[in-house]
């Protein structure tokens, strides 16, 4: 069964531009806040992909009832508020400041580089594909290099352990 997950616009744009969107849709039942939708405009490629998914019914809207989080931009705020109201959901987020705040609030947050490692661990992608996906995310120039570096370290450890097991 898929995990439910709330996300913000920069996460969506990153995974779309890195070619990971199909895998994300396969892995999660995505829910978005209305304000996140308003940030994804159809005049841009990732926005068009978003609205195609909405029209196809692949992702659905859910509005937060409370405005618990007051900081950050309206998109991150709304994505976090949705996750706070559904504590068993995941929060997909790439911006570092809201990411830190979300984890401090006890939310289960995942950023796109860590998602790539998870996909490898689950056997959905191979090692070379995982590295290529991380390289694509890095090449976007807008994913935090610290998050990419952390994911590389994690992937290196997992690969090393897998090799040792194979020896």
């Amino acid at each position, binding site marked *: 069964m898929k995990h439910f997950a709330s996300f913000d*616009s*920069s996460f969506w*744009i990153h995974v*779309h*531009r*890195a*070619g*990971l*969107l*199909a*895998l994300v*849709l*396969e892995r999660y039942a995505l829910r978005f806040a209305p304000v996140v939708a308003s*940030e*994804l*405009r*159809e*005049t*841009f*490629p*990732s*926005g*068009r*992909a978003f609205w*195609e*998914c909405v029209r196809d019914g*692949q992702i659905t809207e859910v509005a937060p009832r409370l405005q618990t989080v007051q900081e*950050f*931009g*309206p*998109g*991150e*705020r709304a994505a976090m508020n949705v996750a706070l109201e559904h504590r068993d959901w995941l929060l997909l987020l790439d*911006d570092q*400041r*809201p990411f830190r705040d979300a984890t401090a609030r006890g939310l289960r947050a995942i950023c796109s580089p860590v998602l790539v490692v998870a996909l490898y661990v689950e056997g959905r992608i191979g*090692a*070379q594909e995982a*590295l*290529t996906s*991380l*390289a*694509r995310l*890095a*090449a*976007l*120039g*807008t*994913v935090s*290099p610290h998050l*990419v*570096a952390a994911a*590389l*370290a994690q*992937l*290196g*450890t997992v*690969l*090393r352990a897998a*090799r040792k097991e194979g020896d």
Partner: protein
Amino acid sequence: MATETRTVSVRLDPDAGKRLDKASALMRQSRGGFLEKAGDEAARRVLLEWTARRYRQGGGTFSELAQESGLAVEEIMEHLGDEERSAAMEMFLASSRTVAEAQNDPAFLEMAQQAVASLTRPDVPDVRAHGTGLTLRETPASYTAAAPVAWRRDGDRLSLRGASDNQRATMERLVRELSAVRGGGRGGSAALAAELAGELEAGFLTRATVEWLSQWCHSQGPGYRGRAQRAARAVSEALFGRVIPALPRGDAGDAAWRELGTQATD
């Protein structure tokens, strides 16, 4: 949803007024329309630089900056990404080297280098289908900019010099979508889509067809706006990597056509 517009008055000295008269006539636009477009383009340039600076200084998230500037989140990210790409890839390789050394695993660095090298190839697959039925219209960003469809201008036609299988599939799909969006008759999108499909099949685009597409991209007529215009613009982006400018008959259109050809040949 009703769109609220604002009126702004400007005062021009005689020379500036003369320049405005001439430039707007060349572009076959009203003076107001010309100023509106020029002002918006200038504002975007200023704001893109400002948001990039603010983001680098940790002065806001993408959502915050979009809200403050009125720019789209994706527009800000595209601009920032273009400027940060080389440094980001250097950091990617440096981090991979550190991991390889820490794990005593030289193969990790080799794989990372292969991953970076694969991004520079124009034939890198753009998306995994995974049976979702999802259609995506964008090749993924790569270390160097994704190679656009290559055209060569031969007088009043553009000859297709090269396109990957993905690019061809994307063009065909978007032309089909354009065809369906507002069908029937000579004035419908199906007629334009048929011309585009036929010419692309033959490996060229005539100026007349590109002009026709540009009308769909820019016309303010009620029959064009909305879904139909978005479909035409998506076709333009797939063909030329951007929404092509208006191509009216006359000097301005000739200049825009030549520019299109120059960019296409680069």
